[in-house]
């Protein structure tokens, strides 16, 4: 399965040659879930992250679909 990933914050720095306009294509096994994508991006459960598609945030167990454009962010803390 192929998904398109757009990275934010300091995440682009981890992928030399990353194109902020287009994002990057990530090839995953069929029926991959959000946690598989994060693992592929080198983002551990401890580090955490936010994954959104079409204005909807996804939890780690959510299934991905072919061709989805995913936004990936750092975990956030605020106040």
């Amino acid at each position: 399965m192929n998904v398109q990933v757009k990275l934010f914050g300091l995440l682009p720095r981890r992928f030399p040659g990353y194109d902020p306009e287009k994002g990057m294509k990530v090839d995953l096994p069929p029926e991959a879930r959000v946690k598989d994508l994060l693992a592929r991006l080198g983002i551990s459960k401890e580090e955490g992250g936010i994954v959104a598609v079409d204005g909807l945030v996804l939890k780690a167990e959510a299934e991905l679909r072919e061709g989805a454009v995913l936004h990936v962010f750092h975990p956030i803390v605020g106040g």
Partner: protein
Amino acid sequence: MKFLRVNMTEKSIKAEDVPQAYRGLGGRGLTSIFINAEVPPTCDPLGPENKLICAPGLLSGTTLINTSRISIGAKSPLTGGIKESNAGGTVAAALGRLGITAIIVEGKAPQGELYVLKIDENGEAVLLPAQGLKGMRTYALVETLQKDYGEKNGILCIGPAGEYQLASASIQSTDVDGRPCRAAGRGGLGAVMGSKGLKALLVSQGGNRPDALADPEAYKQAAMVFAKAVKDHPFSGQLMPALGTSMLVGPINAAGAFPSFNATQGVLEGWEKISGEKLAETIKARGGKSGHMGCSQCIIHCSNEFVDTRGKYVTASLEYETIWATGGMTGIPDLDVIARMDFLCDDIGLDTMNTGVAIAVAMDAGYKPFGDAQAAIEMLEEVAKGTELGKIIGNGPVAVGKHFKHHRVPVAKNQSIAAYDPRAIQGMAVTYATSPMGADHTAGWVVGQNLAAFGGKLDPLSPTGQVEVSRAAQIATAAFDATGLCQFAATAVNDIPDAGKALLTLLSAKLGSTLTPEDVTALGVRIIRAEREFNRKAGLTNEADRLAKFFYEEPLPPHNKPVLVSDQEMDRTFDF
């Protein structure tokens, strides 16, 4: 350990030992418990019976990093309830180094009289007549005060909005560069200061008589552990210095939770133009500053200095909530306009959030079109001039809604929401509605848990579990706001066990006791109890713990959900 009581009716200043009832309290813990004890709940917030209390945190003035939050409390002219608004800058550390636990401003100077309260390096305080400063905006004001009294003073001050006693008036706080760009913005505390006849409070940064620590050696060791954890944590150590709070623009839009066009849309088209990434890129290209230090003893450096295309200073620091209120709510995704509005709010002495939302409500009501940058700036200038319309804008979104007979006013207890729509993150509905402060994101920020991929089962669009999460966050935050620590240092406390233990050691070593996590929770509960007790006596019962009606009736795109947390659920939040 002393209180400075400044009576503006009598023009007297009295130093007194901190009464037993307030020992061991600081920051919000002190301001809220004090107000509940000493301010008549039904008093006129702008009358002589109200009291304005400025309290550094328990740990302010010590060697610990990031402890320069000043809590300012009073009965709020905006909400009609108790208020604590805290700000960074330099004053909290300066007061702590003088061993001053709180400054309490009481009474009221005769109408038209204006004063400056000056505290020197020995902690000696004087009230100085300041008629010449009347009407002065804050940047010119602090420049004058620094010229007259020296640059090594931390300053709290009000602008024209505070002098007009408007309900969105802020108290501005000087940063380490001496600029009045940090704000205790919420709840109209600038109006309370203005009603007293106090234009500014100067505190020498040269003090060297902090309260003794019960166990200096344990304190020193724990302070080192704490600082290392804050530096090591990726959020406080890397992300915040690189992007600052504006790093939230992306994820909150991606979650459909960025209230835009007066909270009629959850995604701002063109948000990429005002994102943290874009802000950092713009600042770098123009020669401004990111990773800038705003507050005394800060090692996080989340601040920035925004400059124009010629590299000239516009404002510091452009923050997420301001970007949202003045750019998202108004439909103006333009960093240059937002920066100008941020500067004007600081200079006039206005809460950027309440004011940005007030402008958005005026636009939504048809007074001016959304996206009209010139109109937005003109509305701010009207506030400074004190025109009839300016006073309506400066009194906040509810005043604007009443004037234009417009129903969509995004508030709780008359205070504007922040940059997380309660329909797209239902946990924020609970915090906004139930916080004794009115809609206040800092009172119990539950955004992270809702959006995190590994955030368990909490669904931002569902009410399930949100009351529990908000309750825990509000209690923990109330206790944390008593310490004087910046909330961005809290990340390390939550995520790194050694930092959490170090914080307990620091509090114990300061107070000479052995505190447990349960003691800290008990402090949070005690603070919220006091705040709710005051509010009840002031007439704000459970029925006040609700959001504006439209949030329950008008679904927010793209998720098309209203607020789903029932009134009964809201009332369960503080079932103690």
